[in-house]
């Protein structure tokens, strides 16, 4: 056991952690947005649109994320080789990061869409009818009756999905994005201290996810009061 390898490469590893956090943050924001849109479309009974979204959700939910990342990286990203300046302008450093974010967002928004749909479906029809009988308009029904209950029911699943997303960013190492996992690989490929490094990285991920859980719980408490 020799932990000096970690202190020597600490800055490099923390740079990797920074990339992980950046990818995770952008992906969480975007997949919340797209997931909500898809979930509402799936919930609404617009015939053909709902079917198409349903097909997309079902297929995405039954294939592994790593396949998605590889597919996006090989099929869509090559068209963007000439536009690195534009990507840098919107805050994305490299093409790998773009592929990873697109794949993770497409993948996670399918899961979030399903969570949102089931949350909306769990509100009983009688409540909406009762609200209508009390002559609330549809905006008021959504704001005061449906959303508060649906959000409370969806929250645990959404928290779990966010934690899963943070863990999933480690798969971006497959296409060479230097985030925490890839940074660790680079360090231990040149040293003989794999075990210590991997233990350290596992601890970093555990701490990160515990912190995220804490923040989400705090926010939950604030909403409840």
């Amino acid at each position, binding site marked *: 056991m020799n932990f000096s390898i970690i202190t020597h490469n600490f800055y490099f590893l923390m740079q990797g952690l920074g990339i992980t956090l950046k990818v995770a943050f952008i992906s969480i924001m975007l997949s919340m947005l797209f997931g909500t849109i898809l979930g509402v479309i799936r919930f609404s009974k617009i015939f053909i649109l709902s079917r198409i979204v349903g097909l997309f959700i079902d*297929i995405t939910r039954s294939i592994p994320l790593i396949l998605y990342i590889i597919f996006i990286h090989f099929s869509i990203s090559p068209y963007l080789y000439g536009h690195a300046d534009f990507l840098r302008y919107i805050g994305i450093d490299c093409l790998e990061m773009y592929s990873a974010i697109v794949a993770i967002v497409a993948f996670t928004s399918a899961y979030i869409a399903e969570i949102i749909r089931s949350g909306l479906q769990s509100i009983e029809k009688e409540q909406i009818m009762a609200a209508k009988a009390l002559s609330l308009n549809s905006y008021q029904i959504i704001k005061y009756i449906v959303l508060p209950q649906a959000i409370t029911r969806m929250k645990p699943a959404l928290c779990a999905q966010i934690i899963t997303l943070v863990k999933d960013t480690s798969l971006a190492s497959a296409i060479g994005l230097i985030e925490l996992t890839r940074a660790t690989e680079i360090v231990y490929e040149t040293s003989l201290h794999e075990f210590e490094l991997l233990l350290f990285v596992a601890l970093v991920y*555990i701490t990160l996810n515990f912190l995220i859980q804490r923040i989400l719980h705090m926010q939950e408490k604030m909403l409840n009061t």
Partner: protein
Amino acid sequence: MYNLDFSILLTDYKIILDGIYTTIFVSIVASVLAFSLGTFFVYFRISPNLLVKKFTNFIVNCIRNVPLLIIIYLFYKGFPSLGIILPAITCGILALGIYTAAYISDALLSGINAVPQEHSQASNALGLTRLQSFLYVVYPQALRHCIYILGSTFMNLIKNSSLVSFIAVTDIFYVVYKGIADSYRIYEYFILAIVVYCSLTGFVLLMTNILQKIYKIPSAEARA
């Protein structure tokens, strides 16, 4: 315009079949391991001893918060530096099993919570030990409560089994990745992978539905 040409899949169908076989093999062995380990975990998570309970909860939480890739690397690249050298497929199965065991113990815990408390109290009154009451009274009922959650956990396991390709186990994802890298026929291989994974998870879904029909507790729906 890209035109699909599936003849590339026919030329190396043997490798593809081999990959599918490896995926199924890894999934089945890992799920057996995960199931037994998950049962083991959940037995300690409902222990009356607070220290054991807290400790097991902590372990399960830790496993759930680490990416599977890190666990796989820990087995494949970390352990050799301690002097333990295992073949790649064993590492993959062990890591996958331990990772999924945490999720399965969660699913089983929710099932156990759905079993009324009186059952274990009654079995205590009849003089069963804690292990006996767990094995013969609570656990079989808990299984029947959480068939769907277990099914989705197993589907996740099948999807996660693609990560063993990172340590050079030639499963279907490895074959697809290598095929794309060799021939750059992205769409054919991607469609192949979708078909394989969809049929595998679809099979599990079908089995779950059948099991749910046979084994669901009739009173559970009335109570809910």
